[in-house]
């Protein structure tokens, strides 16, 4: 039965307007946490992963939906003692560019990324050769995703790589064309995860298992009820329905984490000099909490 500690609400957080976190909103909206007997509390809505990680480190959060990138970096650097309980989604980013870029007519394009060390930077690195470009042949600028659209429209950048819904919106508004969906660049690449504090996993393992199960239900719900899921996305973000629909079509909602994907990303971070990890494979196996997942599955 649930212990006294388990009746404490789980402090959850997510990033506002990130469609990748849809499963959380579904679970909240459809009562999947309650079904698991899990009291939850949205303890914070964040603007970006790094702040969310700080909140983890400060002991303010028990679990959160967040990008795999900030979660990995924080775990390695010790900002937050967390593990991945489940995948929230894979894929769901895209490289969008001006017509000229799509036609390969820009000799030295200016391309925007959302930040350094993110999955999108790795995706872009992978995509460049297919565009006939080298890392030295492009000008990289960091632009916050909402500003990528006006920047592209006003010709200050030639293209950008970002998570949905920014690519979808750019296409719908005819600001840019999709040059490559991330599925094409790196099929099944990791993106966002459900992460939990080590503290929670160690001291309240039942809660961790319940989280995984509720998340699993929510993820299956998205697959089974796409229209209802869309309605929840619109409800939680206020996004236009057609934008959300198009965006969600490019996001793959799966709950099983990919060890291979994470390991590759870790290696990328190591080569970029962002983190120092002796054994990427070992780190990945410890970072993704397979034992709890197995326990939850039983």
């Amino acid at each position, binding site marked *: 039965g649930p212990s006294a500690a388990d009746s404490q609400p789980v402090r959850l*957080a997510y990033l*506002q*307007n990130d469609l990748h976190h849809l499963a959380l909103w579904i679970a909240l909206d459809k009562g999947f946490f309650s079904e698991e007997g899990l009291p939850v509390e*949205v*303890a*914070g*809505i*964040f*603007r*970006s992963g*790094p*702040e*969310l990680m*700080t*909140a983890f*480190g*400060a002991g*303010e*959060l028990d679990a959160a939906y967040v990008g795999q990138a900030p979660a990995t970096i924080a775990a390695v650097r010790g900002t937050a003692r967390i593990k991945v309980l489940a995948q929230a989604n894979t894929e769901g980013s895209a490289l969008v560019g001006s017509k000229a870029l799509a036609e390969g007519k820009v000799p030295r394009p200016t391309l925007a990324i959302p930040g350094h060390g993110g999955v999108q930077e790795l995706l872009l690195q992978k995509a460049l050769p297919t565009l006939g470009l080298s890392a030295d042949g492009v000008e990289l600028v960091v632009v916050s*995703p*909402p500003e990528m*659209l*006006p920047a592209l*429209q006003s010709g200050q950048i030639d293209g950008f790589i970002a998570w949905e819904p920014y690519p979808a*919106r750019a296409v719908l*508004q005819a600001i840019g064309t999709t040059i490559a969906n991330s599925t094409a660049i790196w099929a099944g690449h990791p993106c966002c995860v459900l992460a939990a504090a080590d503290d929670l996993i160690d001291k309240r393992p039942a809660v961790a298992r319940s989280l995984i199960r509720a998340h699993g239900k929510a993820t299956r719900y998205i697959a089974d009820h796409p229209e209802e899921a869309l309605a929840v996305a*619109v*409800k*939680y*973000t*206020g*996004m*236009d329905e057609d934008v959300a629909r198009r965006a969600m079509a490019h996001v793959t909602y799966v709950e099983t984490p990919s060890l291979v994907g994470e390991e590759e990303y870790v290696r990328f971070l190591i080569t970029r000099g962002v983190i120092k990890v002796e054994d990427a494979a070992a780190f990945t196996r410890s970072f993704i909490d397979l034992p709890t997942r197995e326990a939850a599955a039983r």
Partner: protein
Amino acid sequence: MMLSPLVSALAVAGVWQAVCQTGLVPPALLASPAAVGLALVDLCRTGMPPGRTLPMHAWMSLTRVLVGTGLAVVLGAPVGLALGASPRLRGGFMPLVDFIRPIPPLAWVPLAILWLGLGLASAAALIFLGAFFPVVLATCSGVRAVDRSYVEAVRILGGGRLAVWRKVLLPGCLPAALTGVRVGLGIGWMTLVAAEFAGVRGGYGLGYMILSARDLQRIDMVMAGMVAIGLVGLAMELGLKRLSAHLVRWQ
């Protein structure tokens, strides 16, 4: 002929609407006053994100700003007074003040979360950081500008340190300190978006609302949020001016 604030407000709105109607600027990037008006209505009814309406956003932000700026005044004024009155303290601590005050509030976000957690304390602390230094500097200059002869008059009449403070330095620096509070309050509001970066509990706040709308390219709502901040800030400023006129009526 008196220039009423209404006239100047209408003039600004008129130019703004005209710019929008030339069609030179895409409406997706600059909302017209009319569109912003509609967005305001929408924000009160539907909210952004849906269900989170403007009055609640405003209320939460107001709380954060009032707590942050209030603290800034309560702590900043004494610090400014002390620095203004003592060249020794000034020599020792003014460089520290001058070192800390240019540091952007956004850079403090991680430390604020670390020390104060998520919620009011953290947000108020960042607003505090914005408002604190203008209050300190203004109060400090204010004290230094008080005519020495008034201090001497009170000393000679038997007043000690405390009396010099109560009878001369405090009333004497009041006009300058009030200007500092006005600047501080403005900066407090200006710091709001940064403050709501620290993660908002419950998902309310004008800064949070603006950034949410920005994520969705709802420029009309972004601008409606700016207008809302402007109006709340203006209302507080007018209240402050009233108070100030009452306090320094001898001028």
